[in-house]
C-alpha cells in the first residue's frame, strides 16, 4: 500500500481534508482487520468509528515518519480489546475448534483458506490473538503488552490452535481425500 508521508504531516497540522483522505485510503484495511477479529458487522463498524475518532484526537502525538496504517491498526486493536472487555469475553478459555454439525465443514474447507476457517471456529479473544500473531506478525511480548496478559497467554493459544487443527475430523477426511 502506497502512503504519502506528506499526508501524515498535513494530518498532524490538523488538516481535516487530509484526515478524510487517510480514512478513504486506510479504512478498508483497518475495517478488514477489525471485522475478521470481531466477525460482527455492527461491532466492527462501531470500533472503526471509535478508532478514527481517537486517531483524530491524538494526531498531534504522531511523528511525521509514523507508519500510519500500523498506528491506526494498533488503535483499532486497543478498541477491540476494550470492546471484548465490555462484552466480558476476556476469560481464559480452552481453545477447541468448535464444529457446527449443521454446517458443511468440508465445503468450507474446499471454498476457503484454512486460516479463515480456523478464525471462524474460535472465540473472539482467540481470534484477536491469532490475527495479531499470524496476520499482523506481532511478537508474543507485543501481544502481551497490548492485551495486558502474560507472555505465555498468546503462546498457549497458538499452540492449542495448532493442536486443535489436527483434531478436526472433517479436515482429516478432506485432506485424506
Amino acid at each position, binding site marked *: 500500500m502506497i502512503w504519502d508521508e506528506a499526508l501524515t504531516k498535513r494530518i498532524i497540522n490538523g488538516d*481535516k481534508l487530509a484526515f478524510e483522505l487517510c*480514512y478513504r485510503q486506510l479504512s478498508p484495511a483497518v*475495517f478488514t482487520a477489525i471485522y475478521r477479529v470481531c466477525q460482527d458487522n455492527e461491532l466492527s463498524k462501531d470500533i472503526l468509528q471509535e478508532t478514527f475518532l481517537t486517531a483524530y484526537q491524538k494526531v498531534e502525538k504522531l511523528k511525521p515518519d509514523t507508519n500510519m496504517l500500523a498506528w491506526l491498526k494498533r488503535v483499532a486493536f486497543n478498541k477491540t480489546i476494550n470492546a471484548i472487555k465490555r462484552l466480558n469475553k476476556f476469560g481464559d478459555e480452552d481453545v477447541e475448534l468448535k464444529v457446527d454439525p449443521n454446517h458443511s465443514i468440508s465445503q468450507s474447507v474446499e471454498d476457503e483458506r*484454512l486460516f*479463515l476457517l480456523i478464525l471462524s471456529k474460535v472465540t473472539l479473544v482467540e481470534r484477536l490473538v491469532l490475527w495479531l500473531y499470524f496476520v499482523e506478525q506481532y511478537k508474543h511480548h507485543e501481544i502481551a503488552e497490548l492485551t495486558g496478559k502474560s507472555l505465555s497467554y498468546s503462546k498457549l493459544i497458538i499452540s492449542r490452535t495448532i493442536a486443535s487443527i489436527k483434531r478436526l475430523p472433517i479436515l482429516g477426511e478432506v485432506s485424506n481425500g
Partner: protein
Amino acid sequence: MDSKNISSLVDPYSMPDRELERYLIDQGKAELELVNQLETPVGSWQEIESNLLKVETGVKSEYQQVKTKNITAWSKMLTIAASVSFILVGLLSWQNYKLQSQLKSVLVANYLFEEQFSKSSRTTYVGFSSELVNLEKELQSAKNTEEKLNILIKRKAIFEKQLNPKKGVSNEFSI
C-alpha cells in the same frame, strides 16, 4: 489471492507443528493483500465526520466552561478581598477618629486646668510638681497617640485633684 482449497495444499495430520505454523503465517500474510480487503460500511465517514464536529465543539465548550468558571472564581475572590479591605480601612479610620477626638477633648481640659491653676493662688499639695514633671517626661517619650492620651488623662486628674480637693464630711475631724 490463493484460491486453491486447503485439501490440495496441506495435510494437517502429517505436517509438523512448526511447519503448520509457518503455513498459517503465510496465509495470514495473504490476508493483508489489497484484494482480501473488505469495503467499509456505507455512511461510516459521515458518522465519523459528525462525531468529529461534536468532539471539536465539545472540547471548545468545555474549555469555555472552564475559562468562565475560573473567571467567576477569581471575581468572587476579588470581591471578598475588596469587601474585607473596605471594612478594615473603615474600622481603622473610625478608631483613629475616635482617638483623635478624645485626645482633643483631654488637651482642651488640660489647657483649661492649667489656666485655672495659673490664676489660683492655692498652695500645691506635696509631690504635685514632681508628679507633673514626671508626667511631662513621659509625655515627651510617648510613642503613640493612645499612650499620650493616657498620660494627658492622668495629668488632667492631677490638676483636678489640686484645684478641687476632696472635701471631707462635716464631722470628719470632730471629736
